[in-house]
């Protein structure tokens, strides 16, 4: 046996792709899925990798690669599958050539997402097989199983991860890569052009395929009974579970009999019936939706699931144990009230300046998905709606259509560069086409920052590390018909104030490209001389506090009892930012003397 290594679930997906002989991998970054492609690209001599501008394109490229004969994986967070759903539904009809596995990284508990949708439902909806690993080792193994099922049954496969699997590490035994050649490409329009005449036949074939897949699931080694003999209230208990929930249930009830489902769609109902017959009572432990429970209920198998297990939020062994036994964990007690520690825009963040000015000038602001969502927090308070990738622009336009042209003129849609490329471009074209008065502000920090710095079409670098063409936001805006285009320096308060005052008076569609690199891209290279506050000059006006910079804190009082400020030299990034020195009315803030 080879030595075991510690891999996160995401690293295990990457290793699984490598070992399964995958040729092409595509994704759009999104927590908790991002590290999948970041790790696949370590095998770039064997696997072509790309960041697509969004999840739909990622699937379409993956689909094309599969048609072209390549073994392919495409990865995304759960809400990304909403974006990618359109080609995926058709993909279930067309089938594959090279094996294709879609990895969805769900986020029960919403650690960094806008909802906790349960994407197991998508497998059922799209009519494709669903694999649910429970450890890093299984994750690696299931990627290969997925590729094999995909090729054997001519179907895309959905592999469902969740945050606690993606971001947990466990021991994994490594194997060699299975080298498989890219399959032949033969044009096959009857199977790959989904016009109604073809699709009607493909749908029939799909239903037939599902029957075969169901038989496979009944006998798959991924679905197995773990013997146990545990009684509760005098009844022998059998627990059905899948994914990370299985690990919580197993820890909560280590002696119980289990049916562990690794392939839960098509559902192996005969196996479940056999299992249910062998125990007195069936418990179903699953996070979020009653996906397994519904299958049992439809088949008339009595079970206890969501009647006891919470539907909202993520589970734990403690929650699972308490749900059935009402056993409270022994603890030392709780902390009592403490100041919260909310996430904050970094010191030196290029988003801070424009939010400061927009807040001061009382704009209505819609915002979008990224670091800059944090601008909704006091004291910046920029963002009255935040819905999904790209929605800021449509929301702003809709507000105008409801409330009139003047309202539109006072409305800014804030959207990051990567989010803009993901799904803001169509919104911008619409703002021009439908004669809007709103301003779109692209907060161009030259990277996908929130997820930890991924390249995108606006950065001019590919995931493979090659230089490439770079999207020009201004030219794009001009081409779609935006009437007024401004470029601003994200760290120049005076210029930002001038431009934002101007757009308040300007009719027609407008774009601001607010340029300032994410400070974390450069911070390790910078020789930082921090700013400092001269306590003699500080009058306690509080202007610098309105920037919400974590480096600025209260340091003493004025004679009238107002808070003076002080700057933490460890956090301050110095002249790369300098917003505080610009907003200080008494010149009390300047670079520290060496």
């Amino acid at each position, binding site marked *: 046996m080879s030595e*075991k290594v*510690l891999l996160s679930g995401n690293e295990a997906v990457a290793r699984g792709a490598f070992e399964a002989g995958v040729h092409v991998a595509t994704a759009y970054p999104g927590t908790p899925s991002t590290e999948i492609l970041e790790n696949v690209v370590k095998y770039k001599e064997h696997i072509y990798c790309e960041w697509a501008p969004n999840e739909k394109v990622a699937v379409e490229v993956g689909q094309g690669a599969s048609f072209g004969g390549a073994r392919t994986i495409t990865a995304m967070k759960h809400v990304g599958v909403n974006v990618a759903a359109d080609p995926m539904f058709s993909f279930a009809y067309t089938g594959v050539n090279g094996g294709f596995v879609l990895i969805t990284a769900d986020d029960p508990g919403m*650690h*960094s997402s806008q909802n906790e949708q349960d994407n197991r439902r998508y497998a059922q909806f799209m009519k494709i097989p669903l694999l649910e690993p429970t450890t890093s080792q299984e994750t690696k193994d299931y990627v290969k199983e997925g590729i094999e099922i995909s090729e054997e049954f001519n179907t895309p496969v959905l592999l469902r991860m969740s*945050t*606690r*699997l993606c*971001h*947990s*590490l*466990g*021991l994994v035994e490594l194997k060699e890569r299975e080298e498989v050649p890219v399959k032949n490409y033969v044009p096959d329009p009857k199977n790959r052009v989904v016009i109604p005449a073809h699709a009607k036949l493909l749908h029939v074939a799909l239903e037939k395929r599902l029957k075969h897949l169901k038989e496979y699931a009944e006998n798959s080694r991924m679905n197995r009974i773990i013997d146990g003999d545990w009684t509760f209230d005098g009844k022998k208990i059998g627990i059905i579970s899948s994914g*990370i929930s299985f*690990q*919580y249930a*197993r*820890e909560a009830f*280590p002696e119980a009999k289990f049916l562990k489902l690794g392939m839960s769609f098509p559902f192996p109902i005969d196996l479940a019936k056999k299992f249910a017959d062998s125990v007195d009572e069936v418990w179903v432990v699953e996070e979020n939706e009653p996906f397994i429970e519904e299958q049992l209920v439809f088949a008339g198998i009595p079970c206890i699931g969501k009647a006891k297990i919470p539907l909202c939020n993520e589970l*734990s*062994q*403690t*929650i699972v144990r308490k749900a059935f036994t009402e056993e409270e*964990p*022994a*603890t*030392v*007690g*709780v*902390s*009592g009230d*403490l*100041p*919260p*520690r*909310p*996430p*904050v*825009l*970094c*010191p030196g963040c290029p988003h801070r300046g424009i939010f400061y000015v927009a807040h001061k000038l009382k704009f209505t602001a819609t915002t979008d998905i990224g*670091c800059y969502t*944090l601008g909704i*927090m006091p*004291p910046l308070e920029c963002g009255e709606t935040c819905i999904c990738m790209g929605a800021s622009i449509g929301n702003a336009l809709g507000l105008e259509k409801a409330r009139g042209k003047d309202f539109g003129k006072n409305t800014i849609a804030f959207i990051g560069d990567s989010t803009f490329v993901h799904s803001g471009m169509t919104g911008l074209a619409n703002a021009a086409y439908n004669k809007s008065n709103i301003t779109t502000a692209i907060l161009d920090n030259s990277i996908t*920052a*929130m997820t*930890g710095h991924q390249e995108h079409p606006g950065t001019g670098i590919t995931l493979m590390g090659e230089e490439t063409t770079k999207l020009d936001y201004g030219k794009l805006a001009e081409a779609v018909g935006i009437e007024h285009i401004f470029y601003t320096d994200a760290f120049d308060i005076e210029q930002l104030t001038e431009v934002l005052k101007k757009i308040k008076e300007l009719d027609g569609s407008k774009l601001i490209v607010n340029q300032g690199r994410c400070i*974390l891209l450069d911070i390790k290279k910078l020789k930082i001389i921090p700013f400092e506050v001269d306590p003699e000059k500080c009058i306690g006006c509080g202007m610098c*506090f309105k920037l*919400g910079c*974590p480096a*600025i*804190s*209260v340091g003493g009082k004025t004679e009238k009892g107002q*808070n003076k400020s002080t700057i933490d030299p460890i956090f301050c990034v110095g002249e790369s930012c300098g917003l505080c020195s610009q907003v200080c009315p008494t010149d009390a803030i300047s670079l520290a003397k060496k």
Partner: protein
Amino acid sequence: MNDVFSVFITGVGGQGILLASKVLSEVARISGADIKKSEIHGMAQRGGSVVGHVKFGPKVHSPIIADGEADVILAFEKMEALRHIAALKPGGKVIVNEQEIPPAPVTAGLMEYPGDIIDRIKALAGEAVTIPGNELAKQAGTIRATNIVLLGALSNYLPFDDGQWHEAIENCVPQKFVDMNLKAFAMGKGAV
């Protein structure tokens, strides 16, 4: 699952918590134990609360430490120790770095950093082992080694020998920093 040992690591983004949990997982791996490690970073790259769960033993199922399950809370920041105190198993140990990092509502002057954190921890947990981690790390060569100082302090309560710890540190930090980190580890170990 009484034979699983659980270490709940907490602090603030940028303090080197992820490296600490990596070294701890590595030493457990070297010892031949089964391991699960789970991390939640919070939404910001910096300044938010960071939590790491490390569990090891003959067989580990769940990757997370639920309330009342931590044998040790290792806190890089005082208030974060108290914030997560419910994770502690009754009778478990709390090891606290003496550093205070004021969160946004405190820096903005809206709230005060509580002055009685250690007393409150002691009232709940019975005792708290406080470590001047930043000071010791500076003495070892750099404040960035605070995480390894704290692992040194933690090592007094874990069943791994110095040789295993040294191998784990060598496997996780760049070669040129190994000696300094070994020094930091020894200082932390001696501080309890």
